[in-house]
């Protein structure tokens, strides 16, 4: 079908086109208390087509996207392409040029056996240090191997192969008829047995603390310490605001060469887009538009350096060699962890859902398990919420030199946000 589709596109009269052909082999296993609830396998191929039309005065370039089913007939493919051409002519975006082929080092990608990846996950889950009072409630294993080919009218024809996996785990702890749960979700390339074992052993250990919480005190303003995946959302706010799409659309007011941190006293932040992070699920050689991925500094010691993003929006910012970044490395002028764990602070290890709004910078999350360090004692707390705004916190944010990886993000192990609003929790 691919050859026929390319013939149709070449003869279509389109001013440009792109085809993304993705084959995904996936194995899934669902367990309830180590008993297999269900096993699933899938073999799915998706062929997405994007067609471009330039306006007569060449001021606008429109596009439309659609999918060609693997079982589509030639007539069906022709019908889809015709419809896309009609739709693309209706879309009036300022004109930009499509990406041309780029020289890039050969990258064979990472071949994996999904059966082995799935088996590794199952075995790790069987080897955890469960006890009578802290154990695994349920887990869901997803192991995938992706083969993605990108072809364009400008001559790009590149293929990325990579593994992508995920495991969702629910941990229980119980005492005297009272049972609690903690939820964890890990995305990665393949199964990182050591990381998973260590992290889940730690989760089992802290789960018993959830049984002994008191309502979070109404602290007013306090320092918030994050040492878990919630911190990714904090750094993702910086990454989002360095995207060309946000800049072009006026949603980021940052400027290249200027500080991105308001206020004083915080650690100077450096964020790099990186081509490869060990066992990331985003280690593709090329982005979704066929651009080779490379290392690129986005923010250097608190100063904006480079925008990143799709061809359309980076072209609008007059950038020729940009790409859609997948992996990020956050570092900078960090501190020792001990320095960040001094004085009064609330460390939250489990939120119901911690969020940072990319546009407004508002942060919010309900506390499920936290540790209030009042300078002398430590209280295990639950309930209530944290709130604040990243625009005000960006300049006072502090972080550790030690790092920890969460799939495609390598970030400081400890992040401290001073002056966050803490609402107290209710008695259950």
């Amino acid at each position, binding site marked *: 079908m691919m050859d026929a589709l390319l013939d149709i596109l070449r003869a279509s009269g389109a001013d440009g086109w792109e085809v993304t052909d993705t084959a995904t082999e996936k194995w899934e296993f669902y367990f309830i208390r180590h008993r297999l609830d269900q096993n699933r396998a899938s073999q799915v191929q*998706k062929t997405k087509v994007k067609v471009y039309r330039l306006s007569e005065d060449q001021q606008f370039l429109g596009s439309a996207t659609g999918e060609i089913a693997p079982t589509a007939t030639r007539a069906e493919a022709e019908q889809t392409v015709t*419809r896309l051409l009609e739709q693309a002519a209706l879309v009036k975006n300022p004109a930009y040029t499509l990406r041309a082929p780029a020289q890039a080092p050969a990258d064979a990608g990472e071949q994996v056996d999904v059966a082995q990846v799935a088996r590794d996950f199952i075995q790790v889950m069987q080897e955890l240090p469960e006890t009578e009072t802290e154990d695994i409630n349920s887990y869901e294993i997803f192991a995938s191997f992706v083969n993605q080919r990108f072809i364009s009218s400008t001559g790009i024809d590149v293929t990325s192969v990579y593994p992508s996996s995920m495991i969702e785990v629910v941990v229980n702890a119980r005492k005297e008829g009272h049972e609690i749960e903690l939820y964890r979700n890990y995305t990665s390339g393949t199964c990182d047995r050591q990381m998973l074992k260590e992290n889940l052993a730690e989760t089992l250990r802290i789960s018993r603390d959830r049984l002994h919480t008191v309502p979070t005190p109404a602290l007013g303003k306090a320092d918030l310490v994050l040492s878990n995946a919630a911190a990714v959302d904090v750094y993702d706010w910086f990454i989002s605001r360095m995207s060309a799409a946000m800049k072009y659309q006026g949603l980021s007011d940052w400027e290249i060469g200027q500080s991105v941190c308001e206020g004083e006293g915080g650690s100077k932040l450096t964020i790099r887009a990186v081509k490869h992070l060990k066992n990331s699920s985003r280690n593709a050689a090329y982005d979704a538009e066929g651009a080779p991925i490379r290392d690129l500094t986005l923010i250097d010691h608190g100063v904006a350096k480079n925008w990143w993003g799709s061809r359309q929006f980076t072209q609008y910012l007059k950038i020729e060699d940009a790409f859609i970044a997948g992996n990020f490395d956050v570092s900078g002028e960090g501190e020792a962890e001990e320095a960040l764990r001094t004085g009064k602070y609330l460390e939250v290890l489990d939120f119901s859902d911690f969020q940072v709004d990319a546009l407004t910078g508002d942060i919010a999350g309900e506390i499920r398990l936290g540790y209030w360090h009042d300078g002398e004692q430590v209280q295990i707390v639950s309930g209530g919420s944290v709130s604040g705004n990243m625009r005000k916190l960006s300049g006072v944010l502090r972080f550790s030199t030690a790092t920890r990886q969460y799939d495609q993000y390598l970030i400081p192990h400890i992040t401290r946000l001073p002056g966050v609003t803490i609402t107290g929790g209710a008695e259950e």
Partner: protein
Amino acid sequence: MLKAPFSAYLTGIEPGLRRLVELLGSHYDYVSILATDSVGFSMGIGQRAKAVKNETMTTERGQVVRVHRNGLYSEYAFNAFEPEKSEEKAAEILKALDAQLMVLKATGSQVYDTAALPDEPCELTAEFDCEILPENCDQKQLIERLTALSNAGMARGKDMLDCRVSFQSTHISKLFLTANRHMRQSYVYSEGAILPIAMREGKNALSYESASGRKGIELLDELEGKLDSALTAVEDCLRADHIEPGEYDIITSPEVSGLIAHEAFGHGVEMDMFVKGRALGADYIGKRVGSDLVTMHEGATCAVDVTSYAFDDEGTLAGDVIEIENGILRTGICDALSALRLGTAATGNGKRENYAHKVYTRMTNTIFDSGHATLEEMIASVQHGYLLRGMQSGMEDPKHWGIQCIIERGYEIVDGKLTGKVVSPIVMTGYVPDLLGSVSMASGDREVFGSGGCGKGYKEWVKVSDGGPYLKARAHLG
């Protein structure tokens, strides 16, 4: 009004799928196939970027086979089915699932032993009404109307960065087959949203007004009528202060009531969570969980919105379940496998993100019943509190009955009157029985909203709708 026609593609491959059921039936003691062919489009129009895609959250074409043998359920999903090659597909499925069994054997994994699903005969074809199908609409005119709406927002709003307008419409077709069940359904749902984005003195704000329904392109008329309220909302966000954290009397708008219904007890009584022992609700059936004013329905037939189907993804007919009746928790909702394991009846709530995803117990329409008060009476009854409008997100906690709702705006009420002061955003937290137990007034009207998606944890996104009347309650706001 016309009937949304069932997919010609599915009709074409049906004989091959029937043959596949027959072939697999000689290897397994239960076989079902769900085949989907759902087409649609989405449009996003802003001042600086525009996009058209022939896909939505629910467009798909593919098949999934479910089989049962020796107490174990297994599934195989694919999208390259050729009806004349059923034998080859059957061999491919057997090979793939047997390879998985080898891994399970090698790891010594035990099976959650479950009986075979009953296969009661059912013959059904349901084609629901629609005025304008997505595949037949005049897309040029549609883009012009969306552009005019965006332009009007820019012209009439203050300090606007953009006024984005989105619209999408999907024509769903699903075929469910077993040895004894032959079920076909097709319907169209659409949704649209207006998102004004503004900036003043370095502060960004956005708001969100939406329309949704089991309707076709005609839904756009409703969306166009919501521009003024969207612009007022973003202006309110711009001038909003931060709330002083504390416990307050609240009046929730129907949209926020719907969010509470969804997060508080919607997720809490998804009975696949009962099977895992992950929901406190299992221990509270027949017990009080809310005030007398709290009655909550859940089901594809209890409202007509984006997920009002005839049967679910397991071939169970849609229903209307009263989950909470006058404050007493009556029952939950259940997919077919969980129902087998719990010894109860499936309720028509077995849903997949798409054919390539597993079935879970999922919500459809989740709605609080109305009361008899007026909004004016409710405001007049509040000494110090907030009228809450606009939902941003929520998160369930079925195990501990915590609740997190992020709400866009709160309008201060002092001594029974709105003061004009606005706070934003607001994190509402609390203990679900306390929150529902504090419901002291409910308005006589109600609305349903279906423009969002719902995840199970942080994945498995499906369409849902929820709503209710204005409710007066007491909650922690921060």
